[in-house]
């Protein structure tokens, strides 16, 4: 049974059909890539699955259960967590407290318990100096906080939205290691990524979106060869 499955998912914003007839699935322990040019609807897919806004039509199944009617936090409780493309750390909180949020509300832990757990998570993802305010953190650390918060809610499915954007090569390499570590823990991970090297490195399987619809599916090597993908992605050869 796939961890996540969508059937005929559609989303309309006013006149724009941002996602059309989207059916895909992700199975346990898999890292699935969602790629596609700007405006292809990748982030919209995350928002639909996470329940940020309702779909226009179609079904979403998570661990076999239809979750269309559930609100965002209920989906999180079931095991769906995500990071945001532009980092959204919570001010007034330390890095640790940001991570704690996930444990407190995603898992319903008590404060002390959540604190312990958050320390563990920070350790796991290599986040240091966690008791300081987040005012002067580097992008890498902020991204780690994003992951940490998502992880702390003990998800079965984790969306990573443009995780590598804004990171340099070293940092990217470090982040890839973090994601690999998560995969070893049997998490299902869906990455939305622009940086192809990362997609190639991390994912077993990719779906390629263009104009809100799937235009190709398969391993990165496979899809990268397809003419349709290259066109959509790199533009037509002049």
């Amino acid at each position, binding site marked *: 049974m796939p961890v996540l499955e969508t059937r005929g998912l559609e989303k309309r914003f006013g006149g724009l059909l941002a996602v059309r007839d989207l059916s895909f699935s992700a199975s346990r322990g898999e890292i699935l890539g969602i790629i596609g040019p*700007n*405006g292809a609807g990748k982030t919209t897919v995350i928002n639909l699955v996470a329940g940020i806004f309702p779909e226009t039509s179609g079904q979403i199944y998570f661990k076999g259960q239809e979750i269309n009617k559930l609100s965002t936090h209920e989906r999180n409780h079931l095991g769906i967590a995500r990071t945001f493309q532009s980092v959204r750390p919570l001010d007034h909180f330390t890095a640790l407290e940001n991570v704690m949020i996930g444990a407190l509300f995603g898992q319903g832990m008590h404060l002390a318990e959540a604190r312990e757990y958050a320390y563990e998570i920070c350790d796991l993802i290599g986040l240091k100096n966690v008791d300081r305010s987040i*005012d002067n953190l580097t992008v890498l650390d902020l991204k780690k906080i994003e992951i940490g918060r998502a992880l702390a809610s003990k998800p079965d499915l984790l969306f990573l939205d443009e995780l590598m*954007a*804004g*990171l340099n090569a070293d940092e990217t390499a470090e982040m890839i290691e973090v994601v690999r570590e998560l995969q070893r823990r049997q998490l299902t991970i869906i990455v939305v990524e622009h940086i192809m090297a990362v997609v190639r490195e991390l994912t077993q399987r990719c779906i390629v979106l263009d104009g809100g619809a799937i235009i190709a599916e398969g391993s990165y090597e496979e899809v990268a060869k397809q003419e349709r993908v290259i066109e959509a992605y790199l533009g037509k050869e002049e």
Partner: protein
Amino acid sequence: MLEVKNLDVAYGRIQVIWNLSLNIGNNEVVGVFGPNGAGKSTLINAIVGVVKAKSGEITFDGVPIHNQETHTIARGGIVVVPQNRELFPAMTVKENLRLGAAYIPHARAKMDETIEYVYSLFPILKEREKQLAGTMSGGQQRMLVIGRALMSRPKMLILDEPSLGLQPSLVTEMFQILNRIKQDDMVILLAEQNVRQGLKVIDRGYVMENGRIAMEGSIEELSEDEHIRRAYLGV
């Protein structure tokens, strides 16, 4: 043309730029490279007056500008293409472009002429002339904001990470366009993470690290430096 001398910038008590000096000559395209958090955006914000320098001096054509406000600096000929675009989402593409020239006296007179020039650089903007800026895709918005900056007929153009968040095909296109702008004798300060692409455009570059200039050099020097390569070139 632009000279930054011993610049210190701080947000509150947290110092972000330390004793930084750089200069850009006439007809030069200068790159500032460095990883995220190195202080590139802060440097740019200080030059265009969005943040105030704690100490140091910035002169443009010999005139000190570090105490001027952003709009005065813009009227004086330095226009920035900010990282997060800063468009007017409820206005059309054309209105956005016109606003680029409307408040710069010397540009206002040549508005119609400049707009044709911008359209020739970015044909998509002419196609979408009547579309609201807020409804365009990220890449198109990036083009619009460069177009808007050019509308002011600046003496110097500052670009803050123009390739950020763009898909690869657009990144290539973006740098091609920058090369065209360069050929029209524009002085450019380009802040980039993407050194490889950036090196194709610049004449000379600086590398920033933790709010300081780590090195300065020609394209050759920059691309050969092993440290830079490993840390920033993404190789």
